[in-house]
């Protein structure tokens, strides 16, 4: 795994076995700038689930979330020649989607507040922010699934978002994903995945630790 996600070397082609999602996205954007649009399709397929998860985590409804994801790709194509750090295009995509989702969620709350100018507003706002939906008995039929979701729900909102995105990506770029969810990679000595370690500790505690 490369640690130089901001500067893939020349020998790392877009489809090299060791390339991260961030590198694949970067190469696709550079190719797109040169008029080769086909590589972008693969990146759209790979990154769209991450954009969906990001937008939904901000408390945006499903229909609007779909529009925001779609529009994020539109923005990429429109700005393809002007993105300052093409190497960090994955971060750009996640950040663009996240900002649009914030705006949409804020507008939804403003509309809701105008409709019901009641003291209970605070609780409604909190509900909109809750990024870990309650497990649905119909969906999570296995004990194993329920334990995982319960353990996951004990994490902070940012941890949940980070882990969800990392889980969706094949060879993810931690730096870009962390930066995009507002957790820039820290200083020397930043230890391996506190979020993941915490999740696994919770799983062990709840008796769901045997995962292999």
């Amino acid at each position, binding site marked *: 795994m490369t640690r130089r996600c901001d500067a893939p070397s020349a020998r790392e082609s877009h489809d090299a076995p060791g390339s991260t999602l961030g590198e694949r996205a970067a190469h696709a954007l550079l190719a797109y700038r040169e008029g080769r649009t086909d590589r972008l399709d693969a990146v759209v397929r790979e990154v769209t689930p991450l954009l969906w998860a990001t937008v939904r985590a901000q408390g945006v409804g499903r229909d609007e979330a779909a*529009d925001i994801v779609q529009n994020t790709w539109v923005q990429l194509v429109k700005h393809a020649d002007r993105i300052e750090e093409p190497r960090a295009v994955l971060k750009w995509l996640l950040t663009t989607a996240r900002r649009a989702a914030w705006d949409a969620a804020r507008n939804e709350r403003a509309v809701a507040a105008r409709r019901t100018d009641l003291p209970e507003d605070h609780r409604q706002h909190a509900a909109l922010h809750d990024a870990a939906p309650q497990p649905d008995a119909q969906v999570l039929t296995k004990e194993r699934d329920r334990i995982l979701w319960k353990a996951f729900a004990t994490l902070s909102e940012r941890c949940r978002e980070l882990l969800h995105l990392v*889980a969706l990506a094949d060879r993810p770029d931690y730096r870009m994903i962390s930066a995009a969810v507002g957790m820039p990679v820290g200083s020397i000595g930043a230890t391996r995945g506190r979020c993941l370690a915490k999740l696994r500790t919770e799983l062990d505690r709840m008796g769901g630790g045997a995962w292999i």
Partner: protein
Amino acid sequence: MDLNGDELPEVRDDELTLSPAEPLDDADRAVLTHLSEVAGRLDPMPDDLVERSLFAATLAGLEAEMMQAVHVSEPLAGVRSATVPADGVPTEARTISFTHGDLTLMIQLSAERAGRIRVDGWIAVPTPSCTVELHRPGVAPETTEADEDGRFSFPAVASGAASLIVRRPQADGGAVSTPVIEL
């Protein structure tokens, strides 16, 4: 909220990260795979979102300014299709409006025979000399001219994702496109 007791030091925001320096082990990967699977079942991504995104990206490459959807109305009681299908079953029409600058586009979608959709549109703009293109994924666009009142129609369009592009002379504002809509 520290549910871990003494097992982990207090978590600081700038440390909430996975470091490439210590790669994931098999158990980590198993947890993440399971997480992705469960999260996907709780909040599944719409099946067509990737295809819609690909189509939207293709349209964006055509360099038309994007219009904003103003209002997607529920099927209106009492508003019927302009053309009643051969089997005589009345169908309800769906109206959508879009704006961009001084241009407003209103379209009415109604069911035609054999699963086809009729698109009737009206462009409100100071100089309504417009060409209208209907784009769908993977097929060549259909083109028509708006009449002097800004009206146009596509009488029988296959259902699925589509986008309309209104082309005006560059001096009148150039090309604008609707977001992808579901016919």
